Each structure stands twice: as structure tokens, then as C-alpha cells.
């Protein structure tokens, strides 16, 4: 079929397009010289990354804490919210639907400033805690939407069946609903982790003493001639996440099978 040759060609071109910058990163991470031109093969940036970059690793640690912590909480709250919205009628239902939509169309910088003004108005000390709260806030709507999309594929009759068999609300939730929508929950959690790891603007405003995250670190480092170390870190992180995804393949398959 001619059409599939066409789409195949576009897809192949797109993949090359998407991977071009990564090739550049790999190239630079092994480059002895720090300005554009090739200065010979070298592992110096990797050496520096693993032996002489304490600030970078501290930022990495902060990012990991925030990403896992905020994604976990956002996933828990967002999943429950989606269950409620999907099957039940209650007051504030349309309010919740609207509010979960807003973070997608508001400029991030405004979300960041509003949170900063809010926290300082309440006299909350800025730091990891405020970053955590902010990340839960912008992650929650995404988890909510992803879980909701999964829920829409199921019928309420399943719940009714469980009830008819004498299950309590908690039992229904734990034994029927959650397992059923687990793929949606997992994708929501991973989305939240990714969003949190990438966020720069909002974090920038709500961060406080000692709570520098990886994107904030990268932002300042990249302007000051130490980007080869950052390139090396990127390569390591890509390899790490690919390995992680590969190993999680079976885990996800297991969840999907349940």
C-alpha cells in the first residue's frame, strides 16, 4: 500500500529529527574541548560528573525527592477525584472539572508568581516543602485527566455488581476499582514524575534556601561554560531511563494483565 510507504518515510524522518539533538549531546559529552569544535575523545566530563560535581548531585537528589513525593501524593488525590467525577453527581463537580483544566492554559510564570505571593502571604518558609506543594498542584490535574480517560472505558455496572455481592465502599475501591484502572494510575504517576522533573518556571518562584532542583541547576550552569558536564549527565540519564523502562516493561505488563 503506497500510503504506508509514505507514512513510514515520514515516521523515519521524524525519528531522525527527534534524535539529532541527542547525537549532538553524545558528541559533546565525549569532546575534550568545551567550545564547539572537536578537540579529541575524552572522558573528562564524565569523570568530573561523577567525582567533582557535588552541587549537581544535590540538585539531582532534591529533584528526585520532589518528583517522587509530589507524584505519589498527586496520584493518590487525583485518582480519587477522577473516580468521584466519573461516576457520581455531586455539588462542585463542574467546578472540579473546570479547575483541573486551568493549569493547562495558564502561563506557568503566573502560576509561579501566584503561588509565591500566596506562600509569603501565609508566612510559609520557602523550601522543599513549598516546591512539593506547587508540584502536587500542577501534577494533580494531569493525573486526574489520565485516570479519568481510563475510567471512561468502564461501566458503573461493575461497581453495582460488587455492591450486590456485599462489598463495602472501601472494599469496592480497593478490590475492584483500583486494580481495574491501575494502568491509568501508573501512567498518571509517571506523567507526574516527568512533569515534576522538567519543571523550571514554577519551581523557580517557589523554591527557597537549599531547595535547588536539577532544572534550576541546569539553567544557571548552562550559561557559565560548564555545559559539557551537563551533556554527560544527560547521556547518563537517557541511558538510565531507557534501562528503567526496559526493566519496568514486565512490571507494566503484569499490571495490565490484572
Amino acid at each position, binding site marked *: 500500500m503506497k500510503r504506508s510507504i509514505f507514512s513510514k518515510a515520514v515516521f523515519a524522518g521524524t525519528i531522525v529529527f527527534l534524535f539529532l539533538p541527542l547525537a549532538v549531546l553524545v558528541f559533546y559529552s565525549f569532546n575534550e574541548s568545551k567550545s564547539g569544535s572537536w578537540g579529541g575523545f575524552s572522558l573528562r566530563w564524565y569523570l568530573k560528573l561523577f567525582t567533582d560535581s557535588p552541587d549537581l548531585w544535590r540538585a539531582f537528589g532534591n529533584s528526585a*525527592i520532589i518528583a517522587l513525593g509530589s507524584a505519589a501524593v498527586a496520584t493518590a488525590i487525583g485518582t480519587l477525584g477522577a473516580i468521584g467525577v466519573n461516576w457520581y453527581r455531586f455539588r462542585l463537580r463542574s467546578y472540579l472539572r473546570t479547575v483541573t483544566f486551568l493549569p493547562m492554559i495558564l502561563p506557568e510564570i503566573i502560576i509561579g508568581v501566584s503561588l509565591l505571593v500566596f506562600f*509569603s502571604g501565609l508566612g510559609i518558609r*520557602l523550601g522543599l516543602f513549598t516546591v512539593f506543594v506547587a508540584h502536587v498542584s500542577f501534577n494533580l490535574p494531569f493525573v486526574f485527566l489520565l485516570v479519568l480517560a481510563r475510567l471512561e472505558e468502564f461501566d458503573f455496572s461493575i461497581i453495582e455488581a460488587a455492591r450486590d455481592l456485599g462489598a463495602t465502599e472501601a472494599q469496592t475501591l480497593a478490590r475492584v476499582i483500583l486494580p481495574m484502572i491501575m494502568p491509568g494510575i501508573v501512567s498518571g504517576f509517571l506523567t507526574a514524575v516527568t512533569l515534576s522533573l522538567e519543571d523550571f518556571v514554577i519551581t523557580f518562584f517557589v523554591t527557597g534556601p537549599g531547595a535547588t532542583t536539577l532544572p534550576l541547576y541546569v539553567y*544557571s550552569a548552562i550559561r557559565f561554560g560548564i555545559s559539557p558536564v551537563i551533556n554527560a549527565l544527560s547521556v547518563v540519564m537517557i541511558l538510565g531511563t531507557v534501562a528503567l523502562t526496559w526493566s519496568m516493561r514486565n512490571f507494566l505488563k503484569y499490571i495490565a494483565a490484572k
Partner: protein
Amino acid sequence: MVSKSARAALALVVLGVLVLASACGGSGQKLYLYNWTYYIPDDVIEDFERSHGVDVIVDSYSSNEEMYNKLVAGGSGYDIVVPSGDYVSIMIAEGLLKELDLSRVPNLANVDPSAIARIGFDPDNRYSVPFMMGAAGVSVNSSKAEGYAHSWSIFGDERLRGRMTMLDDMREVLGAALKFLGYSVNDVDPAHLEQARQVVESWKPNLVKFDAEAFAKSFASGEFWVVQGYAENVFLEYDEERRGEIDFFFPQEGMPMYLDSFCILSGAQNVDTAYQFIDYMLSPEIAARVSDYLMLPSPNVPARELMTVTPNYSFDDLAAGEFKEDLGLEGLKLYNKVWRQIRVGN
């Protein structure tokens, strides 16, 4: 197997809470420093931590605006900030800074009196202790360009069209044009600013862009040949053996200049340690190490003898510079209007 998933979900929540709890806590004497990116080398901070038994937490910003907006919106928790002169006066007026007890900073005596004499934003150092002084200049890749004058007029040179950038910073660009015209960098006369706007508009077709982010990288790669910017950014991007080809100069007409000072925030929790730190930073050996690292001249007189690196420019080169001062709200609005006209085109 059903409850396994439920348990997994619960475990996620517990994990989140634990991970967060582990992040808080810790004890001991601390100092929270809010500083320019890479302004003080790590080993200097580590030496201070060791000799004074203090844990210094450093966060960085890359512009005065970034730092100031954060603080004025209520961002708190820091003890020391390092604003430039114009922002020192703004922050004094906003009540963000603590009045200093200079008897606790004896090393202030090391600072060049000629520098202190030029301070208009805080004449008696009631709120600020001078740390580093410098200016944005012009860097030329001398392997690509020749026969140019050490003047702001270089940006009017059509032979270099498409190879030059100026900073994305209205004070620096308008300041350059004002100096080129023979006015003060703090001029708020609308007629003078209109003239300055026309000068910048005449330079604009020769510029690739207004860039304060990536100009040094592209200068190092050979893409840009003439850039307005800070010497330390440009030199840090270059491999050492090629640095000979950089011609860094301050235009003969003069230029906007900064003086970054240590200030203690009015909400500081660790005031004693903050004084210790500031005094430590002004000691000759430490000031020399900082200047060596940044390859900048030191305003600290005894430190100059101790420096082992030749700075990118000398302290005397700064004589032609003029400190940027706060413009006031009306002045700021005027500059904004002119700058927007330049950036957007109407």
C-alpha cells in the same frame, strides 16, 4: 492479587510522605547565601565552613531582577544577598536590608577608597559592603574582525553585520547608546533617550539578536564575532589555548558599570554568621582567590598583591565606567517604553 495493587497505591503515598519528611530536618549552625551563579568558588565556601564550623547553603540567581522579584514577593529565608548598586538602593527603600554594624566588618578597610568614593547608592555603606566591581564590555574575535575602533561605534560597522549581539538588557544597551552620545547612563531626559533609541535602531540591523543567555557560547563557537557582555562569561566558554584571540575592551566613550555588594537581609536569622562570612570574604587571601577564579580585578587593595592570575582587564580600565543607579518609577517606565519600541518595533 487484587489487594496487591491497592497496597501498591498505599505504598506510593507512604513513600511520598517519607521522602518528604526525610528532606526536612538537620541541625547545626547554618548560613543561607543567595548569590550570583558561580560568583564564589566552591572551595572558598568549603574553607569557610571548615574554619567556622558552619553549614553554608548557597542558592544562585543570574540577574538582579530574578533575585529582587523573588524577595519582594516575599521570598525569604536567606541571610546574605549580593545585589548590584542600583538594586541596593531599591532594596533599601523597600526595607529589605538590615542596617549594618561596620565595626563587625573590619576588613572593609581593605576595599579601595577610590571605589567607595564613587558609590552613590549607599554612600556610607550603611547597608552594603562592596565585594566585586566590573562592567560589561565588548568582546571581539580578533581572528575574524579587524580594523575596528574600541568604541561603541563598532555596532554600526556594516562589515560585521549579522555577526554581532548586544545584551538583552535595556540598561546595558541604552546605557551604551547614552554613553556613545556623551550622556550619563542614568539619564532620564526623554529627548536624550529618544536620541539613544535612534542610535540603537541604527545598530539594530547589524545585530543578530539581543542576547543575554547564549551569546558567550556562540561567541566561543565562532558564530558571533562581536558581543557585548561580561568578560567572565566569554572567557569561561573558551578553551584556554584559544583565549589569545579574544579582544575584550571597554569602549572609549565609557560604559555602565556595576558594583556588587554584600547585604544582610532584614529578615536574616543568622546575623552573627553573616557578619563573619562577609568579613571573611573581604580578607585579602580570600578576595584574591575569588578574583583569580573570575579573572577579574579586585577592589580589595591588599588582595591585588596576592593574585596569581592576570585579570581580563585592570581596575584602572574601569575608570571610564559609570555606576548604574536606580531610575525611579517614572524613569523606569520611560526606559521600558523606549526599550519596547526597539524590541517590538512600535
